[in-house]
């Protein structure tokens, strides 16, 4: 079994590495798919594993975009001057400036988001149930509105980053691998995290927070750390997105509350929340659905998407993984035996 698993992972890695070269024309969609996988996995950290359903994780995505952009530009030019040219003017970036800006910007975005998660979490984690969802959604909406009135970062004009120096196809591959490496690192990290005591504590908070606290788990500390971790990765993904999209503005692209902000939740529910693979499978399914409807049902795509959300949430909330577990328990044979306690616990809930 162990060998099988390693073989599987090796094959997957090869597929991941080869994908942009096998399908060179689908570079953008493949990169977007990774973005969805990353945001879905990070949402599942607090939503699925810890039971805190945030609707405001998009805040970190948007903030990541802006922090990365401001760092990348600020290293070379004065940001206020750069943005007040309305994306016009000639501002040249050398290769070295572009790549330093990219690396520092993306990492800076992650760190900034992790810190802001601590601060926001300190307030919002006191909110329970729907108020947590509404509160975090509020933070994201308010941030978008405020940034759109902040002239230093371009306000409603948005901000335009330099384009990738050199060949465009190389640029696409570069962005793809930036996303893919982040995604793989995140996966390995979560795979490890969920097996540790920390992961068990997260699940305990989900199952019964009062009891967890009574057993001596400092729930607030766990909640803050796991949200900050997930914020770090969303921030990094946002930062990379900024360099992919190049020209973006606050309300529609960065703090896109009612798009990506909700889609990440739907991805997780579609795949099955609280599982390692669920968010990944969900993100892939969701992307497929989106591509098909956006291509073939022009104008009706939002109706189809609304229907998908309703069906998933109302009828299919355990997602694909949950569904498979009920109809084909033998497929999860190994898992069911190993984690029979877990399964029983889930049934009881």
């Amino acid at each position: 079994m162990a060998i099988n698993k390693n073989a599987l992972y090796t094959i997957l890695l090869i597929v991941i590495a080869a994908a942009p070269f096998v399908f060179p024309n689908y570079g953008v969609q493949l990169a977007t798919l990774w973005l969805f996988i990353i945001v879905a996995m990070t949402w599942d950290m607090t939503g699925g594993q810890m039971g805190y359903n945030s609707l405001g994780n998009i805040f970190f995505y948007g903030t990541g975009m802006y922090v990365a952009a401001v760092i990348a530009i600020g290293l070379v030019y004065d940001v206020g001057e750069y943005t007040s040219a309305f994306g016009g003017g000639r501002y040249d970036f050398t290769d070295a400036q572009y790549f330093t800006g990219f690396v520092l910007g993306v990492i800076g975005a992650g760190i900034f988001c992790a810190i802001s998660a601590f601060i926001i979490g300190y307030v919002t984690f006191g909110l329970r149930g729907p108020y947590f969802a509404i509160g975090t959604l509020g933070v994201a909406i308010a941030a978008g509105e405020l940034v759109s009135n902040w002239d230093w970062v371009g306000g409603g004009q948005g901000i335009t980053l330099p384009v990738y120096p050199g060949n465009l196809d190389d640029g696409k591959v570069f962005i793809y691998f930036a996303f893919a490496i982040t995604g793989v690192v995140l996966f390995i990290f979560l795979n490890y995290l969920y097996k540790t005591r920390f992961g068990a504590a997260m699940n305990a908070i989900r199952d019964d927070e009062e009891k967890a606290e009574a057993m001596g788990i400092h729930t607030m500390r766990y909640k803050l750390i796991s949200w900050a971790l997930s914020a770090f990765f969303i921030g990094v993904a946002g930062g990379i997105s900024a360099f992919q999209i190049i020209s973006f503005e606050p309300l529609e692209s960065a703090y896109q509350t009612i798009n990506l902000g909700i889609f990440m939740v739907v991805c997780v529910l579609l795949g099955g929340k609280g599982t390692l693979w669920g968010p990944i499978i969900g993100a892939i399914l969701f992307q497929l659905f989106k591509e098909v409807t956006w291509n073939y049902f022009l104008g009706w795509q939002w109706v189809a998407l609304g229907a998908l959300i309703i069906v998933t949430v109302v009828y299919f909330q355990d997602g694909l993984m949950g569904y498979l577990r009920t109809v084909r328990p033998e497929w999860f044979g190994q898992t069911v035996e190993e984690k029979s306690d877990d399964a029983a616990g889930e049934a009881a809930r």
Partner: protein
Amino acid sequence: MKLKTLSLALGAFMASTAIAAAADCEKLVLGSAISLTGKYATNGVHAKNGYEFAIKKIDENGGVKIGDKCYNFEVIYYDDESKGDRGATLAERLINQDKVQYMLGPYSSGLTKAIAPVTEKYQIPMVEAEGASRSLFNKGYKYLFAVLSTSEQYLASAVTLAAEKAAESGKKASDVRVAIAVENDPFSLDIRAGVMEDAAKLGMSVVIDEKLPRDLSDMTAILTKVKLVKPDLLVVSGHSKGAATAVRQIGEQKISTPMIALTHCEAADVTGNFGAAANDILCSTQWAETLTYEDPIFGSAANYEAEFKGAYPEYANKKVPYQTAQASAAVYVFKDAFERAGTLDKEAVREAIAATDMKTFYGDIRFSEAGNNIAKPMVLRQIQNGEYNVVAPSAFASHKVNWPRKAN
């Protein structure tokens, strides 16, 4: 109502396919990401209708003749949801997956800004009709061509007019106080920048400078300030919803500013919706059906208006917005360039577009080095008793401007 027009459109469509089949031409595919949903959907649809109408007219006139072959345009559309990142993705898809070699523009400056880097990188000629922001034309793009006038010209003649009127009434131009309320998006902010610049040049002071939110339905707060501060010129720009909200509430609040200038009056159909409240308001427009332009395909500007209304009955009771006319003009530029190039080679076609010098129902089209159209002026119309009359610039003016505006 919608269904009725749908079935009529279906009939029109069947009629047009019959003609196209008779012409027996090959397909020539263009691509466009256009806003069918989201905040720019109204004007996105206006633009799409303009593209479709032009394609139909060109078909009926024998298609595009390249060498001894004839072609009919066909456009692959995607919905960019009024979002820049989506637009850029779709542009890549059109180029990479649908193998589109020539693009028509999206709606709005913001979307064009997002798409232009993509078309530029792939060296795909894009003729756009709806992105007016100046910042598009100072980047050195080689494959971007715009048939419309850039946005700083939209309300420039209103500022000049305000200065003239001040001089007539014995004041100085620098006594004029300007109030600006524009939507917080690239296009409108660019208009604001243009007005600010012109006002600064003439020494005018800007007394109100507000940004409208994207889901605007109430601007009483701004208009109350206007009442208190009493500026001499009020400028509002916020696509269709900005125009609709402004005109409605200007009427209700009896705003007595002597000169009020808007964008997108026709698209919002302010005369049809609000009647007298719209009186004496100045509207900037890229094109007016009363102008004396004409060409062999569409006929005169007035003829374009009439035929377009015939093909799209939902426009029967309002003005055909200039967004539609310029979209048609963009398709016409492509036809003209293909025929002059005499080949489907991308570079040759780009050269031909760059060398465009034509007269159309929409106005003269000649591109600068940067790709914007420098042969066509903006005109300023005033709504006088429910009619749109051209009042500026003086070369085109058919009527005198009513000043000061009478509040009713």
